[in-house]
C-alpha cells in the first residue's frame, strides 16, 4: 500500500517539471520530425505529406552543404583551441602567481558578457580603417586597411576568434573548479619523488582532469552548433554565406523565407548530428576517464 502512495506522490512532484519538459521540448521535437515530412503550408494550402521530398531537396541544396562545411571548420577551429586555452588559463590562474584576482576577472569577463555584446566589441576591433586591428596595422607597420568581415576567405576565421574569446573563459571556470578539488599534497608527493612539472601535468593532472575535459568538450561541440548570436550582429551569414552556420541557416529558412517544412528537415539533421557527436564522445572518452 505504502508503495502505491509514494508512487503517486512521486509523479505529483514530477508533474510540473514534466509538463514543461513535454510542452517545450519533447512535443516540439516530435512535431519537428513530423513536419520534416510535410510541405510548407501557404495561405489556404495546408501542409501535405510529401514523404522524403524535403530530404531529397536537402541533398541537392548547395547552401546546406556550404553551411555544414562552415560549421565543421567552425567546430574544428573553436573546440580544441578554446578547450586548450581554458586549461592553460585555469592552470595559470590556479597557480600562486601574483595578480591572480585580476587575471581571474579578466579571463572571466567574456563569460558574463552576452554574446551580442561580445560581438559588438569585436565589431569595433574588426572595423576596416578605424578598428583596433587596423589602427595597430597602420600605426605600427604602416599597412593598408583590411576588411576581415567583408572577405569570404577571412570571415569565418574572424568568427572563430570571437567564439574562442567568448568560450575559453567559460570553460576555464570548470577547469578551475576541477583544479581546486585536486589536493595540493599530490603535487608535493610528486615533487618529493622528483617528478618535473611537465611529468606531473602529463601523468597526474591531465588524467585527473579527464571528466572535466569530457564535460567541457561535449559542451564545446554543442556550442559550436548553438552559438550564432554573433553572426546576427557581425555578418548575417555573409558574404556569400561564407560565415553562415547550420543554426543560422535554419533561422533564415524558417523566419526569413518562411519555408517551415524545409527548416524542420534541417533541424532534424542537426539533432541527429548533435546526438551522434555527444554519444560518440562519451564512448570515445569513457575508457580514459577516471571518475573519483
Amino acid at each position, binding site marked *: 500500500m505504502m508503495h502505491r502512495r509514494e508512487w503517486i506522490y512521486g509523479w505529483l512532484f514530477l508533474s510540473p517539471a514534466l509538463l514543461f519538459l513535454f510542452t517545450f521540448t519533447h512535443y516540439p521535437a516530435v512535431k519537428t520530425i513530423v513536419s520534416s515530412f510535410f510541405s510548407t503550408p501557404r495561405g489556404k494550402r495546408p501542409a501535405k505529406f510529401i514523404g522524403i521530398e524535403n530530404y531529397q531537396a536537402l541533398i541537392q541544396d548547395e547552401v546546406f552543404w556550404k553551411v555544414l562545411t562552415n560549421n565543421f571548420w567552425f567546430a574544428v577551429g573553436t573546440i580544441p583551441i578554446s578547450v586548450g586555452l581554458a586549461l592553460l588559463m585555469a592552470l595559470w590562474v590556479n597557480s600562486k602567481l601574483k595578480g591572480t584576482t585580476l587575471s581571474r576577472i579578466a579571463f572571466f569577463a567574456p563569460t558574463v558578457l552576452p554574446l551580442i555584446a561580445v560581438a559588438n566589441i569585436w565589431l569595433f576591433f574588426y572595423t576596416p580603417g578605424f578598428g583596433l586591428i587596423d589602427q595597430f596595422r597602420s600605426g605600427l607597420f604602416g599597412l593598408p586597411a583590411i576588411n576581415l568581415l567583408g572577405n569570404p576567405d577571412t570571415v569565418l576565421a574572424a568568427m572563430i576568434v570571437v567564439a574562442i574569446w567568448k568560450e575559453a573563459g567559460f570553460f576555464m571556470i570548470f577547469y578551475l573548479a576541477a583544479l581546486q578539488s585536486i589536493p595540493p599534497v599530490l603535487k*608535493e608527493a610528486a615533487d618529493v619523488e622528483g617528478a618535473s612539472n611537465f611529468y606531473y601535468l602529463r601523468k597526474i593532472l591531465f588524467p*585527473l582532469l579527464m571528466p572535466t575535459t569530457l564535460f567541457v568538450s561535449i559542451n564545446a561541440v554543442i556550442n559550436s552548433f548553438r552559438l550564432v548570436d554573433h553572426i546576427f550582429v557581425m555578418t548575417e551569414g555573409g558574404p556569400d554565406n561564407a560565415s553562415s552556420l547550420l543554426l543560422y541557416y535554419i533561422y533564415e529558412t524558417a523566419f526569413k523565407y518562411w519555408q517551415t517544412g524545409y527548416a524542420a528537415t534541417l533541424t532534424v539533421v542537426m539533432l541527429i548530428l548533435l546526438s551522434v557527436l555527444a554519444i560518440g564522445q562519451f564512448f570515445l572518452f569513457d575508457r580514459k576517464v577516471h571518475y573519483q
Partner: protein
Amino acid sequence: MQEDQIRGQAIALNDVTKSWDGTLAVDRMNLNVEPGTFTVLLGPSGCGKSTSLRIIAGLEHADSGEIAIGGKSVGHLPPAKRDIAMVFQSYALFPHLSVAENILFGLKVRRASKADQRTRLNKTADLLGLSELLARKPSQLSGGQQQRVALGRAIIAEKPICLMDEPLSNLDAKLRNTMRTEIRDLQQALGFSMVYVTHDQAEAITMADQVVLMKEGRVEQSGTPREIYEQPATTFVAGFIGTPPMNVLPGSALAAATGQANANLDSITLGVRPEHVSVSEHSGVPAIVEHVEYLGADILADCRVGNEKFIARIEGHASLSPRAEVKLHWPAEQMHCFDRSTGERTPSDKDLFNHLLSA
C-alpha cells in the same frame, strides 16, 4: 639480510626559524638525528611539527638557519635532490593509478629499468602484504591498505631518510597499534633514518629512539623516551607525557594540605606520576576521592588535594569509593621538582619530600 640494509643519513637542523605573516611557526629549532635512528617530533596541535618536517623535506623554506643531511647543507635544494621519501597524513595516493603504479611512481620518474622495477615491486609488495592488491585502485582499498601503499611508495627506492607526518591518524585504534609495530619493524629492518610526526605521546614513547617534544615552535625537550618519561625537563613535558600525565601542583598547595608550611615549598612546583601513588592508612597527603574509574588491571582515582586535582593509578584489587577521605603516599625519589616561575626542572630536595610525606 645484510645487503638489505640502507645506510641511514644524519639530519641536523641548526637554529631553524620559520614564520607565517608574523606568527612564528618554528622558532630557532635545533635537531640532531643520528643515522639509522627513529626520531619522533611530538607536541600539541599547532606547535610546528609539520612545518619542521616540511622544512626538512624541502616543501617549505626556512626563513633562517641551516639544514644538513648527511653532513651536507641542503637548505637550497628542492625536495627531489634531498634523497628523502615521505608519507603524508592523507597518504597522497594518485587516485587514477593502480597500487603498483602508485608504488612505482618514483622509479618511473627516474626511469629505472623494467627489471629493476619488477624486482623491487615484488619485494616491497611481499614485505607489506600487498601482492594480491597490485591491480586495484586506491579507492578500492581499506584505510590500512592505503596506508601500506603509501609506505610502499616511500620505501621502494630505499632512500636513506623517510619522513612521516601523522601517518596513522586516519586509522582506527586497533589498526593504529598494528601499524605502529609494522612501521617500527620496517625501519629497523631497512635501517633508514626516520623522522616521524605525531601528537600522540603513547605512539611517540613506543616507537622512538629519540623523542623531540615541541611547544609553540620551540624544542621543549629532546631525549630517549625513558629520559623524557623519567626526567621531564619542564612542567609542560611532565604534563604531556604519560596516560594519564604527571600530577603537577604548586609546592604551597601540598604544604597547605599537609600543614607543613615551608618557605622552600613556595618557590617550586612538584610533580608525581599517578602510577607511583599508593593509598596509605597511616601517613601521607590527605585527599578526597571524587571519582573512581575501574580499568581492570588498575583503578584511576580522581582525587582532590586541597583545591588541586590529583590522579592516582592504583592496583585494581584496592577498593575505593567516591567521597572517601584517604592518605596518598609515594616514594620520595619519584618526586619531580620544577622552578615555579620558569617551569624548569630543578634538583629535588629529598629531605624536604620525606618530611612532607611523613605527615
